[in-house]
């Protein structure tokens, strides 16, 4: 589904990604781990199309299509979703209205009619239930005054509503207490299918106890220095990252 070949990227003349190779198939869960500053968040931002990052070499293919020329919204329309570490507050726009806009813009871009209001409401209700989100929460302004946990849960809510092909969860576990972590993980697990893929970017192994990855990759200084199965995450937890450098 997603192929990353020899990806090099820089921001403001600073090389951050220095030749990443990654192959993600439908139905798989990948975890990307690594110390601070290793390029984890840059990798997810580059996949999602953040314009400050310049791809200097290599390519990212989604279903064999090169993403290089595509704007962030076009990538979203093709099924890429990235949950943010620090979601933005939008006063005056409710969670419900925001997700409606996002879904209908995506449908429009894919040549579909808007989702009928009734179906939209049903879907919102079911998804909220799945993620144990209170209905009152949905009529609050997006992320405004949300706690760290609420923000993360809201990101997963949006992911569940948008049903992406490829979901990248960037440090979704940070700021979550154990109960919230379980709810989020439970949501992700329920949405996982043979047709989609999940990339979990994390510093710690904690989330991986609940969302079990098929592959774990260790990123250091802009390169993947080691790949392995889920046991690699435990090894990292025990030994730290230094032994890989």
């Amino acid at each position, binding site marked *: 589904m997603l192929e990353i070949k020899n990806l090099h990227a820089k921001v403001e003349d600073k090389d951050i990604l220095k030749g990443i190779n990654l192959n993600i198939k439908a139905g798989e869960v990948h975890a990307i781990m690594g110390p601070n500053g290793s390029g984890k968040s840059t990798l997810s*931002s580059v996949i*999602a*199309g*953040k*314009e*400050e990052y310049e791809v200097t070499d290599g390519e990212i293919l989604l279903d064999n299509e090169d993403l290089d020329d595509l*704007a*962030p*919204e076009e*990538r*979203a*329309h093709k099924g890429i*979703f*990235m949950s*943010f570490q*620090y*979601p*933005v*507050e*939008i*006063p*005056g*726009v409710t969670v419900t*209205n*925001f997700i*409606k*806009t*996002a*879904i*209908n*813009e*995506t449908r429009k*871009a894919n040549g579909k009619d*808007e989702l009928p209001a009734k179906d939209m409401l049903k879907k919102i209700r079911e998804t909220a239930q799945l993620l144990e989100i209170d209905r009152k929460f949905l009529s609050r*302004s997006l992320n405004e005054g949300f706690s760290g946990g609420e923000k993360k849960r809201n990101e997963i809510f*949006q992911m569940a509503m*948008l049903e992406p092909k490829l979901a990248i969860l960037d440090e979704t576990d940070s700021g979550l207490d154990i109960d919230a972590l379980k709810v989020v993980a439970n949501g992700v697990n329920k949405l996982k299918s043979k047709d989609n893929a999940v990339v979990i970017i994390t510093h710690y192994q904690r989330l991986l106890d609940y969302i079990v990855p098929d592959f774990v990759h260790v990123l250091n200084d802009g390169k993947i220095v080691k790949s392995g199965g889920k046991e690699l995450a435990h090894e990292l937890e025990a030994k730290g990252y230094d032994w890989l450098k």
Partner: protein
Amino acid sequence: MVKVESREEKRKKNRDKMELKEKLITSFLAFENSVSTDTETNVHDIRSKAFTHFEQNGFPTKKDEEWKYTPLKPILKHDYNVFPKAGTAIEFKDVKRYFLHEIESYKIVFIDGVYSSFLSDTTHEGYDICLLSAALKKPKYKMVIDHYFNTIASKKESITSLNTAFSKEGAYINIPKNTVVPKPIQVVYFSTGSEAQLMLQPRNLIIVGENSHVQIVERHQSLTSNVVLTNSVTEIFAGTRAIVDYYKIQNDQKTASLIDNTYVQQQRQSVASVNTFSFGGNLTRNNLEFYQEGEHITSNLNGITIIGDKQLVDNHTLVNHKYPNCESHELYKGIYADKSTGVFNGKVIVEQEAQKTNAFQQNNNILIDDGATINAKPQLEIFADDVKCSHGCTIGQLDEDALFYLRSRGIPKKEAEALLLYAFANDALQKIKISELKTRITRLIAKKLGVDLGFDL
């Protein structure tokens, strides 16, 4: 014969090309004669004094510190007709959209400066919602006029003096004590374009008695793209514990300019709010001054400005805290595109007596294009020592990270920008207490930002 005629013509041409100031000065006598029936009140004296003041000072220029960033010269060069003619009729259906027609309201409507009884819905039952011309003429209003008229309007601002000199028509609203006016009052000034270039000088007098409550929506609307200059003066008196909510919708044609001078005087425990929405027009200058005359007063000043092209909006505000335990809350948001110019000058005076004052001022601006300018100047003059005063002024661009966040959810760039701008203006929007008006303004903002957001915000 031929020569004489051509000389006559020349003289006529010269007279037509006369500077606006000269034209106004030579018109004053004729104007005074036309309103000479008002001799019972002091108004004649007031006009004469104001006229002299204007004659001596003329229009403000860029040399005047308060007008440094707002050049009047380009809008004064037109050959304005200063005596609009009566008689242009408008069908309600053609102007319906300029009214808040979804709800019941009183209406005081003027066409080219002349009262339109056809479009208006006035009353004298329980309170007066009518015309200033009537109040100036009829003896029964003499006491009220003598007590209030031109008592708080500036005697130092020549442009206000000009309005005072020619004051004749406008809204007269007098709400006695213990009265809640059950529906909003809309004051609308249309200009039809039957004059190629028209100058209007409306004058409003609003008196709200003790414990009374009123909501007023004011709008100036040009119906063609002919040049219009409006120099408006409004005096608002809020009695003890009165609540006054005032909304100014400034969404006029790009050929219309507005100088709005609004003076608010508040008695103890009153709450007065003026909300200014500036989206249209060529040049818009808002002089807004609050004078607190008792304790436990709250003054609210809110504004949203969204302009582009070469538009200019200048918000000049003053809050004068004279007594202890009062508050003022000021929030102005500005979004400037293209080569537009914003000016914000927020003066807050806390006099020595005014201990325990809470005065907050916030002015946030976003410049969308490199050619746009904002000149912002907070001025706090605090003479009391036990007060809480704050001011914050920001000038920025749209946050790239925020934009990326929205786009990563599939929202296209243009819509994402509009959503962020809407979010930016949102807190000032939340101050609107008439929900239908809030919806209207929200839609206006969406339209102004050029997007259909797919839902009512």
